[in-house]
């Protein structure tokens, strides 16, 4: 695979530098070059909203920094959790004096680094609350939901949490809204082709031509099955079934839907998938309040897509509709 790289060991630095230059009306680099913050410092009294994670998922995580969204984001190496220091610095940047909520994915490194960052923040006198995303249906059975990974549903969690903080809610209110958002999310990923860390130079997993891996994770974590690749509409039906069977939503429920490419799938194919996704959701008596189709949460140049469905209630619907200003159009 041919890449646009200067130095394969400085991919993250170069990415962040370009990102901050491109979106200097929305974000800036903090003193720690592994932390990006919204240009508008958190208003005094506003609850800070923070996330962080490995790089290589762009536009996640940095692309969701901005007004009514994330106040600060900690940046890790490619597919590797940010340091405790970077999480801590992000928390400090986002602190408006009323506490900070950290909304992140359920990965071993993130869990440890956030835990340590919270200890450091406690010494600063900053109150921190956390919400851990676990929307990836195939990563653990329903009865072990706490073991499931956080994937593209995190975007809904950030949008809801960011919106709640923007209307002046307290730390616990922001946390509870973000928690409700992720509790109401289910996601599934499918892979058609692997990705490669530039410094490693070869893929760590293979997806044989002619096959699809169902339930694949954002770093190529293995799925639940590998099968012959069928038509887009069959794949979309399969994805809907996995997500909606786990969700068990009553007829008439309004939902938000997000179809994201994994990095190397053309946008037109995502629309082909969405065509059937919309049919399947309607067929089950659900109605789509808002849909997002595009590259929202990628995995370097993995070929594939994810589907996320969030069930809405009045509060989530109102929060999802709050306008945001970040590098990624939402």
């Amino acid at each position, binding site marked *: 695979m041919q890449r646009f790289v200067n130095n394969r060991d400085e991919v993250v630095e170069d990415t962040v530098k370009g990102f901050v230059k491109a979106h200097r009306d929305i974000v800036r680099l903090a003193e720690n070059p592994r932390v990006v913050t919204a240009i508008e410092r958190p208003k005094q009294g506003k609850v800070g909203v923070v996330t962080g994670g490995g790089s290589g998922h762009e536009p996640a995580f940095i692309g969701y920094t901005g007004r009514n969204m994330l106040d600060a984001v900690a940046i890790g190496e490619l597919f590797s959790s940010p340091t405790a220091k970077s999480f801590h610095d992000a928390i400090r940047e986002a602190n408006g004096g009323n506490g900070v909520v950290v909304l992140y994915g359920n990965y071993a490194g993130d869990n440890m680094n956030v835990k340590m960052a919270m200890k450091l923040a406690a010494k600063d006198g900053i109150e921190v609350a956390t919400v851990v995303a676990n929307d990836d249906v195939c*990563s653990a059975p329903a009865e072990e939901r706490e073991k499931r990974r956080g994937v593209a549903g995190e975007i809904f969690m950030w949008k809801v949490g960011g919106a709640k903080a923007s209307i002046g809610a307290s730390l616990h209110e922001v946390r509870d809204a973000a928690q409700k958002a992720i509790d109401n999310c289910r996601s599934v990923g499918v892979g058609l082709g692997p990705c490669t860390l530039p410094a490693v130079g070869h893929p760590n997993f293979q997806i044989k031509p002619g096959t699809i891996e169902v339930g694949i994770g954002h770093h190529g974590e293995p799925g639940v099955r590998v099968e012959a690749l069928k038509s887009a509409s069959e794949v979309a039906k399969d994805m809907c079934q996995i997500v909606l069977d786990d969700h068990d939503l009553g007829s008439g429920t309004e939902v938000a839907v997000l179809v994201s490419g994994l990095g190397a799938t053309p946008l037109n194919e995502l629309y082909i998938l969405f065509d059937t996704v919309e049919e399947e959701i309607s067929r089950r008596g659900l109605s789509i309040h808002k849909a997002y189709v595009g590259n929202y949460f990628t995995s370097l140049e993995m070929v594939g897509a994810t589907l996320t469905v969030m069930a809405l209630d009045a509060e989530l619907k109102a929060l999802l509709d709050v306008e945001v200003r970040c590098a990624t159009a939402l």
Partner: protein
Amino acid sequence: MQTLKNAAAGDIVLSMAGAIIDNGAYLSEIDGKIGDGDHGINMAKGFGLVADRIRGKELSLAEALETVGTVLMTEIGGSMGPLYGVMFTEFAGQILDVERINNKTFSRMLHAGLTGIQAIGSAKVGDKTLLDTLVPAIEAFDEATSEGRSFGEALELLVAAAEAGRDSTVNLIARIGRASRLGERSFGVLDAGATSCALILKELSQGTRERLQ
């Protein structure tokens, strides 16, 4: 009574950094079989920074270990940054004001590192992690000491147990971290963290043994 003089033993960490850097590609290769394949890259990067900071400074072992802890904690993320960061910080904390390190102090240092790791991670022995190297290594050292063996002999037994522990991870199924997502498929491969931990313990023990007085 054999002891290690703390003041001039910082170079042990320099040898350790060299061993990790030399084995970077190998560690990544192991990691690539069931993980991301970046363990060696991140470890080599971290220990490269450590080497740059301590080279030619004639640090004590405590100062050098403290440097490793700080660098890993602040510069290397992922899972290994915090785990090893805590371990080395705790190692250093036990010997900060100790002029001569004896076998009891050495044991206390190892236990503090282990306790630190257990406080932030939730892995247990048998989960196919660095604990499968660290825990039996500490047990072997303590057992040898309680049997009345010398500090030097206990260090040799520590290394042997660390390497046996490392090798035991081949026949384990990962229960934590990214490799755990593979379930049965993680069987039959060394754990990268257990492997780097064996390297670290070997360099620490050999360097100590060479300097015993």
